[in-house]
């Protein structure tokens, strides 16, 4: 395994073990040591849930550029994008699962759904998306699994089991599989758009919260998902896999795509902020004032605006030829997007439709003053650590960059008949 993957594994273990105490607390004591309550019912874990869901949707939509729209420029990172999307989806759902009051009743959203609730739509869309990701990943790699079975060892044996009786490529097989992937991806694109736009709608439909109740929200969610997911894929490709410059072209192309998406995201943010600050209605203005000048001002100015949007936009434009800078700036953007997500969820409580109601009684869990408890941060650390460990395990086990990792893979798209769809690339 590459040295950089070992470093990622060490980081994952560090975060994971550090967060173990939080997970033990959460499972042992429930929500007692958390700082959210009736006043702020959704807090830090919901921030990270929409953060990871965005990363997943973004990474998946970039993989669909390859497998649905035939953009061959990103062909070699297609599998990596699908796998990244899967890990991010599982991490996101872990966060929301931990946030539930009754975790073990989560299945009821499937068995007894109320389809008038956007949250029920989400669960069904996630389930479909999860199956699409599994199916796509398997059909992309199953011929390689079968071929690598012969290598023996733990890896060979595991992949042999996961091949589920598939035979190594006979020439036609891979092309057939890619056609299946194209069908799955074609179903997956509207699913990904629907569920992530839908996460935006989950907030936007609440007429009781004017801060969220805007038609811009679902679109903003999608754009920032694409930007953050693209940045994550760029950072992973450069920092973990581009050891000898063999992925320089992909990193540069991804960097340009991320730059474009960040630019659109900045325009969206400006539109939302200006429109909300202009009218005198406190219901719209107060949450923005809270995020800009409240106790967590730095999540808006430093994380959100500085690290996620403006900084990387300028940096990616100036250093657009340097894969190393592109990877680093993408990583900075990925971290900064936590601030963007924070400021979607938490300022929502800054305005009450009946002002002062939550002050009617002095009780901590009714208060609107929220700052995450140590337990909440530890759980975040644990979940991110677990995600890193699973990612490294997957990167070791699966041929994410093709069977001969790092070298150009065969011209599989053209054998699958997908070349007709290829978008003409402008060099």
């Amino acid at each position: 395994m590459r040295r950089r993957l070992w470093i990622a594994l060490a980081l994952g273990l560090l975060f994971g073990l550090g967060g173990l105490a939080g997970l033990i607390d959460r499972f042992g004591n429930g929500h007692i040591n958390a700082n959210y309550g009736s006043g702020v019912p959704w807090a830090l874990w919901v921030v990270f849930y929409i953060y990871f869901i965005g990363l997943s949707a973004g990474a998946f939509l970039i993989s669909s550029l390859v497998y649905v729209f035939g953009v061959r420029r990103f062909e070699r990172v297609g599998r990596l994008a699908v796998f990244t999307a899967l890990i991010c989806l599982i991490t996101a759902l872990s966060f929301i699962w931990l946030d539930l009051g009754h975790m073990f009743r989560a299945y009821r959203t499937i068995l007894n759904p109320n389809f008038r609730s956007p949250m029920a739509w989400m669960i069904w869309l996630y389930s479909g998306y999860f199956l699409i990701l599994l199916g796509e990943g398997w059909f992309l790699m199953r011929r390689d699994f079968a071929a690598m079975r012969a290598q023996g060892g733990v890896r060979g044996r595991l992949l042999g089991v996961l091949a589920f009786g598939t035979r190594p490529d006979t020439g036609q097989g891979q092309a057939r599989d890619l056609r299946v992937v194209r069908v799955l991806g074609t179903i997956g694109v509207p699913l990904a758009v629907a569920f992530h736009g839908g996460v935006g709608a989950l907030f936007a439909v609440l007429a009781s919260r004017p801060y969220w109740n805007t038609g811009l929200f679902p679109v903003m969610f999608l754009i920032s998902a694409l930007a953050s997911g693209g940045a994550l894929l760029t950072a992973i490709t450069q920092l973990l896999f581009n050891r000898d410059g063999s992925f320089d072209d992909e990193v540069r192309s991804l960097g340009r795509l991320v730059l474009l998406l960040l630019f659109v995201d900045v325009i969206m943010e400006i539109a939302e902020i200006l429109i909300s600050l202009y009218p005198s209605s406190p219901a719209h203005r107060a949450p923005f004032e809270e995020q800009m000048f409240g106790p967590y001002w730095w999540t808006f100015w430093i994380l959100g605006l500085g690290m996620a949007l403006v900084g990387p936009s300028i940096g990616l434009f100036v250093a657009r030829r340097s894969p190393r800078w592109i990877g680093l700036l993408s990583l900075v953007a990925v971290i900064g997007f936590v601030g963007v997500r924070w400021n979607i969820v938490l300022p929502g409580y800054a305005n009450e439709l009946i002002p002062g109601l939550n002050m009617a009684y002095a009780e901590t869990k009714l208060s609107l003053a929220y700052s995450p408890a140590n337990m909440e941060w530890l759980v975040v650390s644990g979940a991110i650590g677990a995600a890193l460990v699973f990612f490294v395990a997957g990167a070791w086990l699966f041929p994410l960059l093709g069977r001969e990792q790092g070298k150009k893979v065969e011209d599989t798209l053209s054998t699958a008949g997908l070349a007709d769809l290829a978008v003409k690339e402008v060099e």
Partner: protein
Amino acid sequence: MRYGLVIDLGRCTGCGACAVACKGENATPPGVFWSRVHIYETGTYPHAKLRFLPTLCMHCDEPACEKACPTGATWVRHGGIVMVNNEQCIGCGYCVWACPYQARALNREEARPYHPAHGCTPFEKLGYVAHAKGLIEKCTFCAHLLDRGEQPACVATCPSRARIFGDLDDPESEVARLIAERHPRARLPELETRPKVFYLGGC
């Protein structure tokens, strides 16, 4: 039949007996309030005035919380009372955000005694059975009392008779007459949730 409540703010003295009676009747644990009295000030000295706004679940005809609930745990029972099915609630908290009246409580902890040094009283032990952790809670208009032909605890206890409760669909009921004659206002009518709790007088 649709149960409804008119709160006459002109009569309300802000004593808080409704909130205490609710706690007593429903044994809600610390941190969980189904009925509250918001005390606030308007105007500036020398014209400052103390005002009281009792709040509870508005038992809307078009409840935003029911629409938001992903499992159908929030439902509307006979009489138009918005209820939560404890067996179906997953504790996601979406209804808490959806309710514009902040009438829902997130009870994510094990119900704790009011006086921890003494442990749970027999009353708390008995009452807390209905307050399992991890669930969302709210006012039920004391549905168990209505089934016995009694009034909700907050209505029965109000010393200034500021709360008038009854069937909105019965034109002879006091509550229906009050609505027809004095046109009390519902909170946030622009959201079209059609609350069944109305307020008389300035607030």
